[in-house]
């Protein structure tokens, strides 16, 4: 049926037909929600009543003044610090796995594998890991550090460290694979030339690898910041946000769906979105400035 049309009219038809669904989906599921979110954030809407009032910046004022809302940012810091550790480890393993190592694929696979696991499964695995007399306590006893055992998920001073640790375990493999990919794009001849010049591994890391993958490292740092602010799965599944482990997103979901304050929750989401966008733009500017 299309055969009989000229290529010019075919072109118009195919452009419209092929872009219609993706663009419609993009606008209804990415842009419309953002637009609505901004609108709701200035209201006291509960999510189901027919009418609602515009309250101006009231919701925003509450977020930045009420310690109940503000304290969640402190929790993000744990995930933020954790993700730097995570990147350091990933960079270390990516570097040694880029050179000659026995059982290279085994190590690569094992270190990457946790990233593929179901979030709920990881939550349960670490509930099991941190239980009193669970895996961690038994391990500590086995190496003679039994006195360090404690309520890993019960002590409000420790809980976020434990949860950030579980998060590190889960996402380290992702950074590892990204770094491995970046390092593998460096030409072999560069290493060979530096070998002749008598460079050791540290020199190679410092002067060849690090500069070549700087952009990827920066990108991962930015992802770390937005990841830290939007931490959800692990704390929600493991603790439900109790004992001071409440994160921004858990708070938002609770405010919206448990307490029915949709206007308030939207304002929180707007704050989160703005932070993420600022951070992303910062990264774009930084990387552009480097080039």
């Amino acid at each position, binding site marked *: 049926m299309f055969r009989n049309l000229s290529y010019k009219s*075919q072109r118009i038809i195919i452009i419209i037909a092929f872009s219609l669904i993706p663009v419609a989906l993009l606008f209804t599921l990415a842009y419309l929600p953002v637009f609505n979110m901004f609108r*709701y954030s200035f209201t006291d809407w509960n999510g189901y009543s027919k009418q609602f009032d515009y309250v101006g910046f009231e919701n925003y004022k509450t977020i930045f003044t009420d310690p109940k809302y503000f304290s969640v940012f402190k929790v993000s810091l744990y995930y933020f610090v954790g993700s730097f550790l995570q990147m350091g480890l990933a960079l270390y393993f990516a570097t040694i796995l880029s050179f000659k190592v026995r059982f290279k694929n085994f190590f690569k696979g*094992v270190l990457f594998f946790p990233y593929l696991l179901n979030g709920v499964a990881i939550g349960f695995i670490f509930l099991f890991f941190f239980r009193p007399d669970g895996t961690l306590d038994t391990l500590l006893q086995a190496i003679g550090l039994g006195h360090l055992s404690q309520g890993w998920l019960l002590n409000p001073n420790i809980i976020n460290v434990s949860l950030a640790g579980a998060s590190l375990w889960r996402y380290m493999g992702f950074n590892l694979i990204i770094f491995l990919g970046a390092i593998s794009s460096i030409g072999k001849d560069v290493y060979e030339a530096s070998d002749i010049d008598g460079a050791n591994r540290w020199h190679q890391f410092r002067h060849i690898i690090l500069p070549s993958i700087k952009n990827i490292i920066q990108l991962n740092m930015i992802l770390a910041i937005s990841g830290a602010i*939007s931490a959800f799965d692990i704390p929600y599944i493991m603790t439900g946000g109790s004992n001071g482990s409440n994160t921004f997103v858990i708070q938002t979901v609770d405010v919206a769906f448990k307490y029915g304050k949709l206007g308030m929750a939207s304002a929180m989401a707007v704050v989160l979105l703005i932070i993420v966008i600022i951070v992303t733009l910062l990264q774009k500017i930084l990387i552009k400035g480097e080039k």
Partner: protein
Amino acid sequence: MYQLKYRTASIFKYFTLILGAFMALVPIVVVLFASLKTGTEYNSTSPLSPPADWLNFANYTKAFVNGKMLLGFANTIFILIISIVGATLTGSMIAYILNRFKFRGKKLIMGAFLLATLIPSVTTQVSTYRIINAFDLVNTHFAPILLYLGTDIIAVYIFLQFLDSISESLDESAMLDGASYITIYFKIILPLLIPAIVTVVIIKGVSIYNDFYTPFLYMPSDHLQVISTALFKFKGPYGSQWEVICAAIMITIIPITLVFVSLQKYIYNGFEGSVK
């Protein structure tokens, strides 16, 4: 002297690798151990000690049957197949026209897709929920399907990158034979995109299989449970029967392990491809 230094470095390297592998595996291996223990055995032994009987699958049967995990798998597979086929088709279609044609609004569409990557979906969940609700899709399979289709920007990128490497002279020679654009897309482009499709299917498939938030929020009904919400339900009633929970955890991990072991190469390629 040099050799001594070299050997110490080498020992250190393997020591850290083994330690890393140990840390990655221990949390999972102890779950495997616990899943094969009987209730009394579980209570009387340390988490680190292996099960007495490696073939004690009683907990697995219990978890599988009581947790209605078959239903979870069925729902997951249903959602997975429709979303992946849909995302591959729509993603490759938009990538095809963006890559091959010049038209007004092209830059705008490209920009709209780019800008959307800046919006973390988790921030807009509350108002996205209102929209899905307005379509009357909450508590149906189609809420997550629509969301998995709509938010897929990574797939578009992968296809765009791959299309660059497919020569346009192929299209042109088909046009000389009188093929329509539709024929070119289905008979030439789509088959040549297969490596990219494999990558998209894996990345997308893993994230859908593992997603907890979307089904948890949009499909609260029991009969709609997917594998991750089925697992989450063990939290309440089996609170103290860790050996059963551990079996349930293993049931969700086994399929992903099989996929990983058999498709390892493609998985790495997919991630490397998205870096470059």
